[in-house]
């Protein structure tokens, strides 16, 4: 159909099957724009036809144009001959639909005329009362503040929250994909996937895009019912997946680490933890040019996540200035009193 061709839509044969009589074996039917075109790769046809049998069916959105870069015509392109990856059968994830030889570095031949949003401070840590996740809200784009009130902590489900750092479009979308996959897992297996499992899922979904300009650095903060405890994982698009008790990500992370490392301890109360997280983000926004504006804070406990009111940091700066002024005035008064008493003597 002409309309579908225009939109790259002809893989969505499930819903529009009456229009696509000659539809080929396009199996993954959940997503519209993510098209996995395997008309040409007939050797993979048998691999994919079959409905949702295996439990961990990852739908990796690898679009068609990644197989043929449109700009290879007539120009001296950089060496993008890809190494054929291992056949999917040898892959540990049995249903990873990833054909060999995708030129994922096609993007390096096209210099983009614009910058994407980057730069942030996010942090997350565990303590006896759960997990705290905090982030600033500035999203910058090559020197301009693209958005002073973006949301960098995205809830994925009732007991899992993810902080995002890197390109905001990538983070937003991959969180959506992760939320969808977790929901499907929950429906199929009648239990929620653990935070570690979610981290592994995200890491494996990002793996095909390693080496491309995709940039996602997320910390997944959650509470696992079965493992009875808070969990914190750091997942990065270059393949890192770490479990830990304290993570800070972004351009302002060194400043945040310095505040956190000094005062963090497991036995903190909730108020102390919240104050600490807020202070860390505040100091980082003070020193880092790419972080600023407001602080978002989420607290995850056994009952789910709770969102604290977004706080404007401008007020805090004024309060800080006021406090400094008070301190100086106090000191001056003390000195005058000491001088005064000396004089009397």
């Amino acid at each position, binding site marked *: 159909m002409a*309309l579908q061709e*225009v*939109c*790259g*839509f002809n893989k969505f044969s499930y*819903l529009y099957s009456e229009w696509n009589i000659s539809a080929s074996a396009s199996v993954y039917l959940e997503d*519209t*724009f*993510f098209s996995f075109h395997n008309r040409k790769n007939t050797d993979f046809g048998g691999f994919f036809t079959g409905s949702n049998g295996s439990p961990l069916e990852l739908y990796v959105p690898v*679009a068609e*144009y*990644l197989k043929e870069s*449109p*700009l290879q015509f007539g*120009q*001296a392109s950089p060496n993008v001959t890809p190494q054929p990856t291992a056949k999917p059968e040898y892959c540990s994830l049995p249903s990873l639909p990833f054909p060999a030889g995708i030129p*994922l570095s*096609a*993007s390096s031949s*096209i*210099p*983009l*005329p*614009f*910058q*994407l*949003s980057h730069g942030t401070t996010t942090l997350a840590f565990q303590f006896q009362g759960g997990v705290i996740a905090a982030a600033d809200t500035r999203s910058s*784009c*090559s020197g*301009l503040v*693209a*958005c002073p009130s*973006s*949301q960098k902590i995205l809830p994925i489900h009732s007991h899992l929250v993810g902080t995002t750092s890197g*390109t*905001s*479009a*990538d983070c*937003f*979308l991959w969180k959506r994909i992760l939320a969808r996959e977790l929901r499907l897992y929950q429906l199929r297996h009648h239990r929620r996937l653990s935070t570690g499992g979610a981290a592994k899922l995200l890491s494996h979904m990002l793996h095909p895009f390693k080496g*491309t*300009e*995709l940039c996602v650095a997320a910390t997944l903060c959650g509470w696992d019912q079965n493992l009875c405890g808070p969990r914190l994982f750091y997942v990065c698009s270059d393949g890192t997946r770490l479990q830990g008790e304290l993570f800070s990500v972004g351009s302002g992370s060194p400043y945040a680490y310095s505040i956190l490392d000094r005062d963090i301890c497991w036995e903190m109360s909730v108020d102390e933890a919240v104050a600490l997280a807020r202070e860390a983000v505040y100091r980082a926004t003070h020193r880092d040019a790419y972080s600023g504006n407001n602080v978002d804070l989420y607290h995850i406990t056994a009952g789910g996540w709770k969102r604290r009111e977004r706080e404007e940091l401008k007020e805090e700066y004024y309060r800080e200035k006021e406090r400094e002024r008070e301190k100086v005035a106090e000191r001056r008064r003390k000195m005058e009193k000491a001088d005064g008493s000396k004089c009397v003597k």
Partner: protein
Amino acid sequence: MLSSDSYSENGKMRDYHYTGPVEHRFSPYSFNGGTVLAVAGEDFAIVASDTRLSEGYSIHSRDSPKCYKLTDTTVIGSSGFHGDCLTLTKIIDARLKMYKHSNNKSMTSGAIAAMLSTILYGRRFFPYYVYNIIGGLDEEGKGAVYSFDPVGSYQRDTYKAGGSASSMLQPLLDNQIGFKNMENVQHVPLTQEKAVQLVKDVFISAAERDVYTGDALKICIITKEGIREETVPLRKD
């Protein structure tokens, strides 16, 4: 289409001076200028754009508006590379038709915004060089503005400026509509007349200082009665 290294990263042209032999490569992107702006009110939304189409030092057209009507309650403004703007609006129109045919109702503004985000991200590794802003009425009849970056990250705002003069207009809007950086000011809600006047003033200022903005201003005012259009002349030099 000129080569990419004559443009710096925000789309404006670099200074022209000789730096030695440079290898020029074909770039599929080009910057055609233009500014778009959208403001959301209590029961209305305004989308405005200038009508100049330029490339490098030349003006291709003085009558090329950048607002496109999508449904009776939604207008999109797209600036950046004109080729991608045209294709993107064609794809959105096609998807709107498909939705209408299969669901028997028009898409709401929020749904169009979510759909556009996925369309843009579908081309993550060869993006549409378009800065989009959608303005319209949501299901409750309140004004809504959704602003996008070229790869699909979006959020709902009250006002947003995009395009070549966006860095000049956005602070002015922050101050006048968002009452930012002002002390002891009463926050009055924005009326439609004041909003239209503000948009005109703001574009006149932009045309003074940005070379890619000018010629004429097209304003689309979206209310529950429909979409009304106004054209205001701007500087032509």
